């Protein structure tokens, strides 16, 4: 058991390290550097910058050093909690994305919860009543859910919200709470706004969850232990819930691991369409204006949070699957 935990933890650390390199590469990737764009911006606003001033700026940010050294400098800052300064906002990156990062996670977790609330009963039903009309409907919805890219789904939901209900379904807060500090009222307001993004984000994952669960369960239902349990005199409902569903849940728990990256990924693009106050829209504008420290920090933090989430889901698997617990 300990071996498993250590292995997963090590893997997470290595992954975080690789993500940090990728994030830094994104910071470095655009032609020219951050000073170039800074100068261009200053010049555009009418402040000329001399060559020596530019050199000073470069030296200050260590921009003449090789990639590895620059990465080291950046990492040291990051580990100290300093993610750099956003050029576009003229504020520390941490301030720009603090709340938004938390909200990104809130939205992603809400989507995950929605996914399981829907996928679990439908998946079970569809496997137990295989080839029934309900199974076909569930399967078709599953296919649709997978086929509609979630930003399109967001657009459609928005259109329906507007044309049928006359509502703007975007955002996570009502106007009156938007600029307020945190309060219980604001929290409730957030809860009331969560379902739409959760559904939009969770639908594709739900469709996938239904498929995975249905297939797992169909496999499990054919296993002899189901016959054994039936031969004991267990009622069908109790039997299915206690045995095959329980066994089919294991691979399911491990799918959380790859659903989370998928959902976080989707949340970026969906929050742009639904104008949610998450990191998505900030990432887009930072990329458009080549505010690379901000963009790199967002990519890094999203990656790290996803990896941590995946690690937690591995631990969950440990909790529910005795076979892993008993290992070594």
């Amino acid at each position, binding site marked *: 058991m300990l071996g498993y935990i250590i292995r997963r933890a090590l893997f997470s650390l290595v992954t975080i390290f690789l993500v940090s390199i990728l994030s830094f590469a994104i910071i470095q990737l655009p032609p020219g550097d951050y000073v170039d764009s800074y100068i261009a911006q200053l010049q555009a606003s009418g402040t000329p910058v001399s060559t020596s001033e530019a050199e000073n700026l470069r030296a200050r940010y260590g921009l003449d050093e090789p990639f590895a050294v620059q990465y080291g400098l950046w990492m040291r800052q990051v580990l100290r909690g300093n993610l750099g300064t956003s050029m576009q906002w003229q504020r520390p990156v941490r301030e720009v994305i603090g709340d938004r990062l938390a909200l990104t996670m809130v939205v992603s977790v809400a989507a995950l919860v929605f996914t399981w609330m829907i996928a679990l009963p439908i998946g079970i039903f569809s496997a137990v009543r295989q080839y029934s009309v309900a199974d076909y409907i569930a399967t078709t919805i599953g296919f649709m859910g997978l086929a509609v890219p979630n930003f399109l789904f967001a657009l459609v939901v928005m259109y329906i919200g507007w044309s049928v209900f006359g509502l703007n379904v975007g955002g996570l807060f009502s106007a009156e709470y938007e600029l307020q500090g945190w309060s219980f009222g604001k929290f409730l307001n957030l809860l009331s706004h969560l379902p739409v993004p959760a559904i939009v984000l969770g639908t594709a994952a739900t469709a996938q969850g239904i498929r995975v669960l249905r297939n797992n369960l169909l496999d499990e239902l*054919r*296993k*002899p*232990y189901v*016959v*054994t*349990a*039936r*031969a*004991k*005199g*267990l*009622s*069908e409902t109790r039997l299915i819930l*206690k*045995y095959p569903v*329980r*066994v089919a849940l*294991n691979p399911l728990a491990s799918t959380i691991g790859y659903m989370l990256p998928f959902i976080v990924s989707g949340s970026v693009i969906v929050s742009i369409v639904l104008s949610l106050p998450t990191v998505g829209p900030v990432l887009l504008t930072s990329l458009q204006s080549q505010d690379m420290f901000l963009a790199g920090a967002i990519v890094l933090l999203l990656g790290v949070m996803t990896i941590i989430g995946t690690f937690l889901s591995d631990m969950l698997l440990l909790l*529910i*699957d*005795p*076979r892993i617990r*008993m290992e070594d």
Partner: protein
Amino acid sequence: MSTEEAPLLSVKDLQTHFFTDEGLVRAVDGVTFDIHRGKTLGVVGESGCGKSVTARSLMRIIDRPGKIVGGSIMLRKPRNDGSNQIDEIEIGELTDDGREIRSIRGESIGLVFQEPMTSFSPVHTIGNQIIEAIQLHRPLDDRAARNRATELLTMVGVSRPEERLDELPFQMSGGLRQRAMIAMALACEPDLLIADEPTTALDVTTQSQILELLQDLQEENGMAVMLITHNLGVIAEMADDVVVMYLGQVAEKGTVDEIFYAPKHPYTKALLQSIPNIYQPSRVELPTISGSIPHPYNRPAGCPFHPRCPEFMPGTCDVHVPETLVSPTGQHVRCFLYTEGAVRIDREEATAGKDASQ
């Protein structure tokens, strides 16, 4: 096979069919036999002859798209109240997942089957699964049920039973698991234990241990055993009566001595000949049954065995369905060889009253 007492279980003309997309499969097609208290009925046949489906039909646990379409399964179940009353229950007529059939499963009929590796849920402890079987039919609290489970494991010869209860199936060997499986099947002292190839997946030493265990347990509590196997050696060792099945039908039925020393049906004879014998001269090829089991969707007309039968009579066996004949000693055989004037049987006469689905 004459017993004064009424049999525990009487199966009459049982038909279980599978309605698949590809067509109708008559997995069990008119099977009749009795099971007596304290006796062992051996059911033998090649894979796919309908042995397991017959067994599962008795407990009504056939998977979709299988369905019992005809016949009767009469269980004579003694009342629990101490009186000598016996309830006659027609299992075939009970509702699918109803309380009555569930009270028979595990309580009156226990099931042990082939795969000891997968017969237990991999994520629940052995104890959890045995205790569940006990508590389903006995009003025992957790502690009492656990004690009973320990008792059961001890009875089937599992050492350190207390610890085993908390182990997961994958931590136990195949033999141990099969013992645990038997313990679970016996949890409520069933009147009938169905053992469906209980030793096929086990190594030879473990096999004989398990069989001995079954015999001992039967002597102790006087239950009936229905032993399904394709291993004639096991049958010879264990059974009192034998049913030989071929393609969902009973080819021959009799006491173990009748089957082994006076086989009637060509199929039974062929089965017995294909057993290697240490008294046989060496380097002689073992006789085998020619041909293969017909495809289930495509069963031959007439006697199902005729394409492979060494005593095939053209014009009879491939046209008409043989009737079951009963000898004075009670041996049943379904073959034209024993019909008066079989070879000369009149075509119109035979086709009049019979059809292939009988």
